[in-house]
C-alpha cells in the first residue's frame, strides 16, 4: 500500500482538523501547532463521536462530545470528567502513517517503506472532486490500475488521486510554480466535465 493524498497543506493549517476518507476508512486529519500532521480513525473510543468534529488544543486533538484529549501518538491523556485521573494506556485511537511533503498531506493505511511520490517540484493548485472511481479517472490517462499519482502532459500537471468512494475521487492538482494557476484551474474544470460526461 502506498502513500495517498488526503488533502492540501494550505487547507489544513496548524490547529485545524478536517474529515477525510480513503475508501472505507473514515479519517480525522489534523495539524498540531508544531506543524506535524496526523491521520486517525474518525471515531472517538469513548462513545463513538467523530473526532473530525473535535478541536485541536495544544498538541492534542480533543473530542467535541466530552472533551477527551488525545496526544500526538493517539493515546488519551486527559478526561475532563475525571481531571485527577491518568487515563490507562489502553484508551487510544487507531492512527495511520501521515506526513506532509510538497504541500500535500499523504497517508498510508498500512506501514510502508515506499518513498513519497515524486512531484518534480510542482506545487499544489487546488483539489477537485470528480464523480468517478479513482480507477476510472486514472484510466483516462492510460495510467495503471490504481495509481495514486498520475502525471499529465497538459500544463505539465500532476494529479494526486484520493479514492473516496466507488463514485467519488478527489483529485489534488499540482503544477509547475511557473504555471498560471487560473489556466490550470480552468483546465481541471474542463477535465472534470469531460470525465463526468457533462458539457463544460
Amino acid at each position: 500500500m502506498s502513500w495517498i493524498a488526503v488533502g492540501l497543506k494550505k487547507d489544513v493549517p496548524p490547529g485545524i482538523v478536517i474529515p477525510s476518507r480513503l475508501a472505507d476508512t473514515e479519517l480525522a486529519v489534523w495539524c498540531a501547532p508544531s506543524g506535524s500532521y496526523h491521520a486517525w480513525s474518525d471515531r472517538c473510543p469513548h462513545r463513538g463521536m467523530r473526532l473530525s468534529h473535535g478541536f485541536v488544543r495544544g498538541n492534542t486533538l480533543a473530542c467535541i462530545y466530552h472533551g477527551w484529549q488525545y496526544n500526538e501518538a493517539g493515546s488519551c491523556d486527559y478526561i475532563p470528567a475525571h481531571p485527577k485521573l491518568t487515563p490507562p494506556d489502553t484508551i487510544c485511537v487507531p492512527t495511520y502513517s501521515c506526513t506532509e511533503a510538497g504541500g500535500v498531506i499523504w497517508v498510508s493505511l498500512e506501514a510502508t517503506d515506499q518513498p513519497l511520490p515524486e512531484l518534480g517540484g510542482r506545487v499544489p493548485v487546488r483539489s477537485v472532486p470528480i464523480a468517478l472511481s479513482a480507477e476510472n479517472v486514472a484510466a483516462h490517462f492510460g495510467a495503471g490500475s490504481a495509481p495514486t499519482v498520475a502525471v499529465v502532459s497538459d500544463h505539465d500537471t500532476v494529479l494526486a488521486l484520493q479514492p473516496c468512494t466507488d463514485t467519488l475521487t478527489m483529485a489534488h492538482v499540482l503544477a509547475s510554480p511557473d504555471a498560471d494557476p487560473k489556466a490550470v484551474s480552468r483546465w481541471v474544470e474542463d477535465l472534470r466535465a469531460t470525465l463526468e460526461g457533462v458539457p463544460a
Partner: protein
Amino acid sequence: MNTAIENHWYPVAMISGIDGPRETLLLGKKITLGRKDGTCWVKDATGKALPTVERFGHLWTSPGQPNRDLFTIPEADSPGRRLVDVGSVKVKCSPLRAVENFLDIAHFPFVHTDILGAEPHTEVDRYDVKIREEVDEVWATKVKFYQPQAAKSAAGGITTEYMYRVPAPTCSVLYKTCPPRPGEWDIITLFVQPLTDEWCEVWPWMALYDDESTMSEMVSFQQLIFMQDRSILENQIPRKLPLDPGMEVPTQADMTSVAYRRWLKKIGYTYGAQLVAA
C-alpha cells in the same frame, strides 16, 4: 414479533399538534393517527385499531399488548407547574442513543457550552445508580453539576442536582433543582418515538416552576439544547447503541449509561441496539 420490544408504550404525537389524520412510523412500520370527537386514535397498516393512552400532553400507543400501564410522573401533577409541550426533533440515530445522551452530564461543558456547563467545571463526582428491580426502572441519584445557566429561570451559575429515571426503554425523566424554588424539582422528560432503529422522533416535555419566562422562551431554550445534542447524535459511529462491552470505553462518569445498557440487555430490548462488535 418480538414482545420484548412491541409490548411497550411509545409516544407518537403531541396531542395539541394533532389536526387531521397523519401517518408516521413506529418500529419501522407505518401507522396512522388522528383525533375524533376529542379522542385520539391510532391504526396500524392493516387498519386495526391500536391501544392508546393520552398522558403528559402526548399520545401513546403500542403495536403489542403492554403488560403494564404507561408510567406516571406523580410530581408533575402538583399545582403551580407549567406544562410545556416542546414540539419534536427528528434525529438520525438509534432511539437508544438519544436516551443515553439525555442521561449524560459529562458533555454539558463541551456541547452546551456556557449554558448547561462550562470549563473548567468539568468534573463529574460519583453518584448513585441502580436498577430498581421492584419497578423495573433505572435510577441515577445525587448527580451534581455546576451550570452557568441551568434553566431559562436561572439568574447565574449554580450547582444543580439531578435525578434521572428510565421508566421505559425509550423514555427518560429528569428531576432537576428548580432555580426559583429550592427544595422542589423541575421535571424535564425525553420521550423518544422509534421511527426505525436508526431514526427517531424526540418529544421533550417539561413540567416547570417558572412564573417569569414566556412559553415560547421556555420552548426555544429547550430547542436550542436539543439542536446542540442533535449535532452529536447524528455523528456517532455506529448509529446503533452497542450493548456489549468492548466497543466503547465507559468511565465512572458513565455509570448511568452502563446501567441503562445493562438493563436493556436484561429485558431483551434490542431495537436500535448493536449486539456484536462491528
